[in-house]
């Protein structure tokens, strides 16, 4: 996957960022929809609409034979089984399965061919209209030809492919006729003055008594009609291509059911990852408390106890011990302060991301440039997750990268409902999310929010961490 981000004139191109965590497709996967009026795109779209009909006829011709054969064989099969049923009272589950498998086998040539047609159509839509339509097929299991045929026949995607290809004949005809009509209208408009006089030597009737009988009048009409015909053609072509995309997505893309199934799988996984991340976090806190503050407090209590013992007999030693205990107590305070700060920074809830990230940056041992551009505050979950992405990344920069400076950028992409966090350094790179728990822990936290983490860190550097957090999930978003 190649990521290119254009932001205020600067362009970062990520050659091969590693998506950490589950490899899920984004919900809407457009690569470059036709929303900007460009004549090259208009031409491509018109070409697309004109070729729909010939392609539809081709696929219809290819599919007609297996379809007819299938219908015929299916009828024979139904009749045969029906007879057997009637004669032998042959019922029960295995028998019904045999019946279904027979039908599946009969439909195999049809499904195999329509897959090819549908794949070609998906590619055509992506290439000409710039919309990706993802493949909806279930995985075909290994096994006998019969098993595979059965699996295919049970996958609704194949039948929806077939429906699309058959429907394409009608849709293609409509598209072809419309584009031709638009072209004729356009060409007719520019040649209006010429054919006006050929067809109406007496002058063309325009409206009741008004007649066009001079060249200037004809030219005026042509000039007025020209933009109308251009606009008409433009809207027609754009509208039809969009409609075709909708049709393609509905029939060639994953069904609502398939999407939901995939989503459930994804959610189940991210839920358990989030849970694991929480447990890991608890273990870390336990360990930090145990190794840090708890040890210091034990030693503090010990020193105080010893001081009390020595108080009467050896006041000098007692004073020394008290001195040490005092130092120990202050260290314990500092330990706990760091730990508490790491669990949840108070400044984040009080003053938001900009202040909290700036404070992080000012504590970093190397210079960190911070640029946070947000209007309003994201919800607490998003804010906290974004904060920890920065905290973890800056800690990594300081510990491993050997960088001399780093930059943190946070901004919102309103059209995609995303909050983007980027941390870039000028270090030696080579960060591997598989090694160590920091980055994978972050990815897990992000996954729980449907966010994603990209890490690009080629050997020799620099390291580029990018996190995308959706703002449109329920309970998330801008406060």
């Amino acid at each position, binding site marked *: 996957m190649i990521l290119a981000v254009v932001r205020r004139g600067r362009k970062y191109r990520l050659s091969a960022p590693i998506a950490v965590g589950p490899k899920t497709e984004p919900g809407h996967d457009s690569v470059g929809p036709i929303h900007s009026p460009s004549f090259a795109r208009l031409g491509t779209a018109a070409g697309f609409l004109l070729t729909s009909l010939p392609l539809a006829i081709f696929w219809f011709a290819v599919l007609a034979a297996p379809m007819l054969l299938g219908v015929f064989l299916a009828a024979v099969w139904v009749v045969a089984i029906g007879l057997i049923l009637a004669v032998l009272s042959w019922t029960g589950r295995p028998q019904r399965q045999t019946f279904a498998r027979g039908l599946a086998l009969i439909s195999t040539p049809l499904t195999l061919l329509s897959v090819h047609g549908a794949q070609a159509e998906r590619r055509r839509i992506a290439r000409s209209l710039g919309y990706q339509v993802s493949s909806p097929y279930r995985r075909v299991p290994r096994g006998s030809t019969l098993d595979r045929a059965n699996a295919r026949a049970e996958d609704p995607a194949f039948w929806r492919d077939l429906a699309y290809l058959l429907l394409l004949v009608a849709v293609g005809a409509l598209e072809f006729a419309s584009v031709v009509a638009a072209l004729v209208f356009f060409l007719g408009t520019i040649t209006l003055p010429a054919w006006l006089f050929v067809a109406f030597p007496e002058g063309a009737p325009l409206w009741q008594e008004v007649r066009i009988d001079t060249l200037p009048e004809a030219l005026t009409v042509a000039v007025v009609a020209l933009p109308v015909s251009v606009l008409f053609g433009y809207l027609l072509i754009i509208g039809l291509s969009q409609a075709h995309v909708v049709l393609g997505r509905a029939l060639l893309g994953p069904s609502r059911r398939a999407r939901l199934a995939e989503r459930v799988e994804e959610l189940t996984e991210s839920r358990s990852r989030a849970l694991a991340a929480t447990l890991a976090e608890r273990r870390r806190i336990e360990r930090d408390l145990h190794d840090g503050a708890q040890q210091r407090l034990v030693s503090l209590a010990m020193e105080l106890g010893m001081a009390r013992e020595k108080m009467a007999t050896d006041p000098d030693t007692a004073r020394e011990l008290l001195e040490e205990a005092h130092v120990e107590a202050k260290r314990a305070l500092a330990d706990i*302060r760091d730990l508490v700060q790491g669990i949840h920074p*108070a*400044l984040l809830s*009080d*003053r938001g991301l900009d*202040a909290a990230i700036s*404070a992080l940056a000012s504590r970093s041992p190397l210079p960190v440039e911070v640029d946070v551009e947000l209007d309003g505050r994201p919800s607490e979950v998003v804010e906290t997750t974004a904060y920890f992405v920065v905290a973890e990344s800056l800690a990594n920069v300081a510990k491993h990268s050997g960088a001399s400076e780093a930059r943190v950028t946070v901004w919102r992409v309103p059209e995609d409902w995303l909050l983007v966090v980027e941390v870039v350094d000028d270090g030696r790179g080579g960060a591997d999310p598989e090694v160590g728990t920091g980055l994978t822990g972050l990815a897990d936290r992000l996954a729980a929010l449907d966010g994603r983490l990209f890490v690009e860190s080629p050997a020799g550097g620099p390291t580029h961490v990018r996190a995308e957090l959706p703002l449109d999930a329920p309970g998330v978003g801008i406060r």
Partner: protein
Amino acid sequence: MRDAQTSNGPLRVVIAEDSSLLREGLARLLGDAGLDVVAKVGDGTALISAAERHSPDIAVVDVRMPPGYRDEGLKAAIEIRRRVPDLTVLVLSQYVEERYGAELLESGAAGVGYLLKDRVADVPDFVAAVRDVASGGTVLDPEVVSQLLSRRRRDQRLASLTPREREVLSLMAEGRSNHAIARALYVTRGAVEKHVKNIFGKLGLAQTDDDHRRVLAVLTYLRG
């Protein structure tokens, strides 16, 4: 600027801290040091009314207090400084953030202190800080100063300071006098004066003998 010493009696203190353990501890500590604790309160609203009723010399305020346990203390501190202009405030916090320090200083830098709560453990230093703030000084926690310094790290003029001069600058920003700086760094007072002169020269600040105004100049520069 207020000079508390002229009012003859001991410094009158209001303590605002929601943890009763710490509240009583602070009261005892300050009482033992010869200050007069006139009121002890547990939240921001009570602090404002206590400050208006008792008009103390100084309020010692915890940042995090009920009801929200966020920055109620800071907000109350800024509010009482607005309402009772002569009142000085020392804000204590479990963590210090340059941002909070800046907000506090915006309400006027004279008679303001912002310290990490841990500093209470060093009793003489803490009491000195309370007296310093009460007499119109500015006391900032070294943590805040280091945050300020690191924020201006790439400043060309700041980069031109020698390590020793940077040390002196941090101590100046914390509100220490030349004498105190000399003691802290184990150098003569003359040496400190020389460093201070160099620092003011390199940063382009106007020289002044007034400790307080000197702190302000440094803070303004660092925050700028």
